[in-house]
């Protein structure tokens, strides 16, 4: 419903994807909760993943990560990309 050909929302113009935007908003809301809901919610924010590099068709030993907040441009994920306007 925005004017046709507009740059779209300000965050997209700044190079952010919808998923990053949505996750940032969610993170801000979680930080404003009262206990005990806050600790439960912050637990939900944790992401565990394991990455292994492949060389010559063989995987090296995987390394495990735990990050507390998805970075704006995670190089490791292929996120579902939803284009909004």
């Amino acid at each position: 419903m925005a004017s046709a050909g507009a740059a779209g929302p300000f965050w997209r113009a700044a190079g952010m994807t919808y998923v990053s935007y949505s996750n940032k908003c969610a993170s801000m809301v979680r930080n404003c909760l009262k206990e005990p809901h806050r600790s439960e919610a912050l637990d939900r924010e944790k992401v565990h993943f394991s990455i292994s590099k492949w060389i010559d068709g063989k995987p090296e030993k995987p390394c495990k990560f735990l990050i507390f907040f998805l970075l704006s441009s995670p190089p490791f994920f292929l996120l579902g990309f939803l284009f909004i306007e």
Partner: protein
Amino acid sequence: MIIVPATTGQMGVLPGHVPTIAELKPGVMTVHEGTDVSKYFVSSGFAFIHANSVADVIAVEAVPVDHLDSNLVQKGLAEFTQKLGSASTDLEKAEAQIGVDVYSAMNSALTG
């Protein structure tokens, strides 16, 4: 009936609503069930209204408004307003603007 905070404004949904997909902005979703009214703060997301009068509201975080702590909201709003003033790159400005939007919405949810 529900009222959802669409990016195009507050949208009321009753049975028989035209099928719609609406992008939501951070704000309050009000659910009216008979005389009961419950308010939830939605971080952002979508509302899908189907032809069979079923509506789905999808959000990463949706919390009852009384789960929000107003001191933390005030602090966050002040912090992001200050960041918005001192932001230099486009990305920093966008992040600060998002912060201001989300925290102001939470603030109005608590005070409104």
